[in-house]
């Protein structure tokens, strides 16, 4: 296996990580845009996505199905998880996020932090044997009975990973379409720009907030499912670090800017992957390096890659 194939392998791995981070980061950026809150429990919503899909897989006995019914069940599980978790997201927002959004950002940060802790621990305590890591079943491999991957000169591209990547890209594309081309999307953008004026123009602010949280949480759920498929292992605290990374990615990309969040997510993933591979002892330090990059960004370009307008109101 030559050096270039190693590089390609790492690039591909970076892509896989990046798509997950991006989906989470998009949520962060949407919430900030629309409600001016940092939703630190969003990472744990990602975790719930992974867990609920695992539960659904067992419930619907996906693994004993085959053929067309298999495909239908699969799609159903994906959609159901996303909807379910989207609903959870709105629930959390109603209970613990919106009420504190009126206060200082410190408050909402802490409140959502507390919420995240509560969610994480609840899963650990109430999910049977919650503190152990759980095996996430290989659900996509059935689609490719036999051939699991294609090899291009030493680099392995697993079909299931390609499929995940495609699904993720489609999701982001659809999101972009929704936000930019539909009436609802327009309402969301309006609320993000200036909530009060939007309300005056007839936008139902509360409804928009609910919808935004639903979408953001559903995307996080999708990321959770992807994570489960990719690593085949989920654990109750997988949301903690994912949340921090998602937040960092969103900030680096520019809070409030969806494309920025996506860029930030991929940037973070690539920095991690490349430092792990090419810097001596990088594997141990990859998070440190990524965070250092984040800090540097914040110092030198606090408004992010694609910019958030930072005004100081007097």
């Amino acid at each position, binding site marked *: 296996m*030559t050096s270039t194939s190693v590089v390609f392998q790492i690039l591909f791995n970076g892509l896989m*990580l990046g798509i997950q981070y991006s989906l989470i980061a998009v949520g962060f950026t949407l919430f900030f845009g629309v409600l001016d809150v940092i939703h630190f429990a969003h990472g744990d919503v990602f975790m719930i996505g992974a867990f609920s899909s695992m539960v659904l897989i067992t419930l619907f006995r996906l693994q004993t199905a085959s053929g067309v019914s298999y495909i239908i069940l699969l799609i159903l599980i994906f959609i159901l998880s996303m909807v379910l978790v989207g609903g959870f997201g709105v629930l959390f927002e109603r209970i613990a996020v919106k009420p504190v959004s009126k206060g200082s950002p410190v408050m909402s940060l802490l409140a959502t932090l507390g919420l995240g802790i509560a969610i994480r621990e609840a899963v650990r305590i109430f999910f049977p044997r919650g503190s*152990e*890591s759980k*095996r996430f079943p290989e659900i996509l491999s059935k689609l490719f009975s036999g051939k699991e991957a294609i090899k291009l000169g030493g680099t*392995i591209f*697993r079909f299931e990973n390609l499929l995940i990547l495609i699904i993720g890209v489609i999701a982001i594309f659809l999101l972009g379409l929704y936000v930019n081309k539909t009436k609802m999307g327009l309402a969301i953008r309006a609320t993000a720009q200036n909530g009060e004026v939007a309300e005056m123009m007839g936008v139902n602010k509360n409804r928009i907030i609910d919808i935004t949280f639903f979408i953001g949480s559903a995307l996080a759920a999708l990321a959770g499912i992807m994570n489960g498929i990719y690593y085949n*292992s989920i654990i109750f605290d997988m949301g903690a670090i994912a949340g921090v990374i998602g937040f960092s990615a969103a900030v680096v990309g520019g809070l409030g800017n969806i494309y920025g969040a996506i860029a930030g997510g991929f940037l973070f993933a690539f920095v991690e992957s490349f430092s792990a591979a090419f810097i001596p002892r990088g*594997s*141990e330090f990859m998070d440190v390096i990524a965070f250092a990059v984040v800090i540097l960004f914040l110092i030198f370009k606090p408004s992010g890659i694609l910019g958030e307008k930072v005004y100081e109101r007097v």
Partner: protein
Amino acid sequence: MMRKMRKLGILTLILVMVVSLTTVFSYGCGPKEEGKKTVKLGFIGPLTGKYAKMGTGGFNSFTLAVDQQNAKGTNKYIYEIEVFDDECIPQKAVEVATKACSNPDIVACASHYCSMVAITTTDVFHKFGVSSTVWGAVLPDITYGNDYKEVCRVNGTQVEQNEFNASLTVDELGFKKFCIIYDTTDYGRGHLEYFTKSLQKRGLEPLSIDGVTIDQKDFSAILAKIKSLEPEVVYFGGLTATGVLIKTQMDKMEIRAQFLGTSGIKSEDFNSALKEHAEGSICMLDGAPVEKMPGGLEFKKAYEEAGFKEPYEAYGAFAYCAANLIIKAVETVGPDREKLIEEINTTDTEDIIGHIHFNEYGQNDIPLATAYASQDGKWIPWSDSLYAKGDRELPGFAYRENREWDNPYNP
């Protein structure tokens, strides 16, 4: 009305005082049992968290031993267990060790499955002057790195494990190209050190050495590198949670190498989490397999009859013996912490694992280690396995000859 309320308030206050005073002084005089005094033993292990199964297995075995002793009726004392959860986190372990030692009723402790935790509490036990018998941690330094009389160990160390490991894989099976992954705790580093030494003794150097943190989830970068080196064996010095992730990702990247582990992955979880992907892996454990131990079958039977939910796992038998030797010491010198330290140090006895004798470092010299192969979802002692007999082919053999390996296990 006010007056009445005030009186009520004062009455409540007096009631509180009375209640508290009585509790204070009633605790002073303990329950007077018919004749026998109760002696408390401390048990510390990971009861929650990723290694809960190992800790619970040890705890159940310990409890089994204590219950059996109490049922005998011929002992001078009745034994009770105070159990503490160290969560496999060093800080937590120091806290609970301190708590155990501050409890004047606890006369001796049996502690720890996780090495990185055991190495830190040695100081606590020494400071407080309480005997601690290690039942599951294998880092050599725990006994050899200090001259604390308080710390003794029933199970073996990484030195023997890794030497045995190398003798099996290099001398017997003929593998030469190893890539090593280790976790960055003292446990993983210990394995790295001793396995590398054992390899060097045989004139071999590992092709690569990579460290991973115990929280790490993504190993694709290291594995990509390892793949390009084309090793025959990937050796992993670390615990189950990480081992499962590494093996999964290794297979996904189609790294054609034999997976080799240590006592850290000798757990039921490894097999149940990986299902067919665990097949053909090899690991080590100190001591003989339970079935082959002198008292092993009885232990197994008694454990099953006791109806514990969890299996006794890799170190259950050792915890069982720890309980027995501590109790034996208490029966000899009484519930005195200082005397117990002396007495336990001079342990020279027989129990289900065989002969137990603590050397000048408090280490039980068990020269033996056993290799296990993962076969049909279970760890089978190497010599009993189909792999040793040649009925099944090790993945490493197939890959060595550039062939695909047929996984015989289909759950």
